[in-house]
């Protein structure tokens, strides 16, 4: 598969699957990217780095982009998404990496657009007669999750902005998009791309993990809690560790927003949230809470959503599933099927003769983790308090809440969600479309990587 891609062998991840990885190889690769970083990236201005990154992202969006073409040719089989779903996700991802957005990211997280270039001062700093500079880690190692490609691409981008030599250990068989991204950067700037290394190797290679971590000043890890913990245990206390464990997301529809007029648009947006990346990202909804008392009830929302998912399957089909995951969906459906046969408090809609999509309506407000791959719960709930009570099991683990609310209720509900611990509240339909400068798990992504030097003036 890899050799079919016909990319120049710049990165370890470009080597054929059977290539043997050793700790010495990892160490050697680290030395090369460190050398290249000192020569090329460290002295580079922020404006140049941003130009390169935005230029590389643009290469993905052009008509007949070779990178998009390769991603769509090999991605469906390697990553398990349909061509359409993958393309939509990648367009969203690379469309967010524009120069103004990247500049805004730096200014937002670090308080000044030139913060990574020189000592500079915000208004507050000027007032206290200080100037400050932020410096990224010289060496930054990433262990990335394999569920969706976005997190590896954004981790790499953040590392470039803070001028780190980077080594990305991609999830097994999930290196395609990060590799293509690195090659697109190389297309714009070979020196900058030479400060990156990407590799994939089967999990449980502790020797390689140690060789990856050893030269790194900072280590990031995304994935299951167990995967993040497995990395963290090897990171010495004197190194910075940024871990992003598992998160779940949900949607909340306020009763005022449930009218016959607004329903079609609401349902399209919710269906988009369920279908984006086949629901596999941490920002994808498991449950949609529908507030009771509106003109439209949760059951009607569920029925409409089922129709919308059936339509989406025509245009953005779900990827094929391994038997085990399909079996999980089938087994879980059968449980709701028999509940539905016995009580009106449960209803089930499902794609015929496939596991492509499933909607379960339950009056029980308890949060349920979905088996994903377009399996969504729609639940009745009296009010936000009841929804949050129902989601108590996942409190502290909720990343995003899509909120359909308007007027005076919107800020009130947002406050309630924020107080409860939600990190991101977005409109329905935007769950998997965070702006690049969003605060991942409620923390500033660039701010997490840098250290500061304050210069106090006499």
């Amino acid at each position: 598969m890899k050799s079919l891609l016909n990319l120049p062998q710049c990165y370890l991840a470009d080597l054929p699957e059977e290539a043997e990885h050793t700790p010495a190889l990892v160490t050697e690769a680290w030395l090369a990217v460190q050398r290249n970083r000192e020569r090329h990236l460290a002295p580079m201005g922020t404006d140049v780095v941003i130009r390169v990154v935005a230029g590389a992202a643009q290469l993905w969006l052009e008509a007949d982009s070779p990178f998009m073409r390769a991603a769509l040719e090999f991605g469906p089989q390697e990553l398990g998404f349909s061509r359409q779903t993958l393309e939509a996700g990648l367009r969203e991802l690379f469309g967010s990496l524009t120069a103004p957005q990247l500049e805004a990211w730096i200014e937002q997280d670090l308080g000044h657009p030139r913060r990574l270039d020189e000592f500079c001062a915000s208004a507050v700093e000027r007032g206290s007669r200080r100037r400050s500079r932020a410096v990224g880690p010289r060496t930054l190692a990433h262990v990335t999750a394999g569920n969706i490609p976005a997190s590896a691409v954004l981790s790499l981008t953040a590392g470039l902005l803070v001028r780190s030599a980077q080594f990305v250990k991609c999830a097994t068989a999930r290196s395609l998009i990060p590799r293509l991204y690195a090659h697109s950067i190389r297309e714009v700037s070979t020196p900058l791309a030479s400060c990156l290394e990407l590799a994939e190797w089967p999990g449980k290679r502790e020797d390689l993990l140690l060789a990856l971590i050893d030269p790194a000043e900072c280590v990031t890890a995304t994935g299951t809690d167990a995967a993040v913990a497995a990395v963290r245990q090897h990171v010495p206390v004197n190194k910075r560790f940024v871990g992003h464990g598992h998160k779940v997301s949900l949607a909340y529809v306020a009763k005022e927003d449930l009218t016959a007029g607004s329903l079609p648009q609401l349902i399209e947006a919710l269906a988009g949230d369920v279908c984006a990346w086949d629901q596999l990202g941490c920002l994808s909804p498991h449950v949609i809470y529908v507030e009771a008392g509106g003109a439209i009830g949760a059951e009607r929302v569920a029925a409409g959503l089922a129709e919308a998912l059936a339509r989406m399957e025509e245009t953005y089909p779900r990827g094929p599933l391994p038997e085990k995951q399909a079996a999980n969906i089938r087994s879980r459906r059968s449980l709701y099927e028999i509940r539905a046969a016995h009580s009106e408090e449960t209803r089930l809609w499902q794609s015929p003769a496939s596991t492509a999509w499933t909607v379960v309506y339950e009056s029980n407000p308890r949060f349920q983790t979905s088996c994903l791959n377009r399996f969504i719960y729609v639940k009745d709930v009296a009010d936000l308090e009841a929804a949050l009570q129902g989601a108590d099991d996942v409190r502290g683990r909720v990343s995003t809440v899509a909120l359909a609310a308007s007027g005076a209720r919107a800020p009130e509900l947002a406050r309630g969600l924020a107080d409860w611990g939600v990190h991101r509240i977005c409109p329905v339909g935007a769950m998997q479309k965070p702006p690049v400068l969003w605060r991942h798990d409620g923390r500033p992504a660039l701010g997490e990587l840098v250290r500061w030097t304050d210069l106090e003036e006499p």
Partner: protein
Amino acid sequence: MLSELSSFTRRLARFITNSGEAARTEPQVAPAETFAVLALDLFRLQYSLNVPYQALCRARGVRPDTIHDWRDIPAASTSAFKEFEFSCLPKDEQTGGFESSGTTRTVRSQTFHSAESLRVYEASLLPWFRRHLLPEIPRNPPAGQPGLAFLSLTPSRADAPRSSLVHMLDVVSRQGWFADALFAGQTDEDRGWILELDRIHAWLHGVIQKRSPVLLAGTAFNFVHLLDALQVRNLKLRLPAGSRIMETGGYKGRSRELTREALHAGLARRLSVPPEYIVTEYGMTELGSQAYDHVAGESPVDRALRFPPWARALVVSPETGTEVPEGQAGLVRILDLANAFSVLAVETEDLALRREHGLELVGRHLESEPRGCSLMAV
């Protein structure tokens, strides 16, 4: 209707006897009454007697007059047994029942029984067990030759009255097939099964001295516990020739997990029971019949699990619910006539490859049960 079910069980008993005879003499002979006829008749009875099952059929738009092929009989999933009473028996006729294994914190599947339904269970269990574990059973061992001994690593029926596996082994132990029998397991406070190792050791020592071959039965994790204990004590036991093992039922987090090959190699090494005398059984609370992978003492051809002629296993695509071609994986669905008093068609949460003559399990106990606080892997 219930009396019709009783008359069905008499037909089933004849079918079992006949197919047992046929299997022994001429495996190709088609019995006069076919599986298909019995299955469709039983479906009709269960549709009218089993209330939750009927609701399920109605939800699928299925009635007895719409089903003409036994393969199309609607299956209840094993997970549904955790919430619904899939029984044709009126409450006042239920005398007991079984529960699936699990800790005190998990929801367990339940089945319900009466004296009559247990008779069906036993009528199904015994011939197929005997054929695979005791093919050459010395009913009357020649004078001077010791009889076969039986050791179950599970708790006794008194200790685990709700376990269908324990019930099965208890029934087996009381057939007059064994000169001696022991149940050497205990339940702990979390409903787990543990072994009384000193007792097992002493008992095995006894059978070795008497040169009495032994049939050793238990779950895979029982055997891992036994192997671990023997390793700690640095013991290898030389069980008398003709000794055999029936292992079943996966690990369920009760011990470290071994592949079947590794488990069998360990049993061969520590107990001197060669792999051709180690038989894998596949059964579950929700089923009246069991499958075995080969006949003890014969060299296994493919170790595919085979159900008796009165139960049929289908491997169905999890996507479409239709039978997969040979060699492909899918969910195991079983149509078991011995489930006369519950639901004959049961879809499990086990993944298997469809083989020419049976099943090869590739994954058991998928995590389909939704749980609010257990987070999926990303």
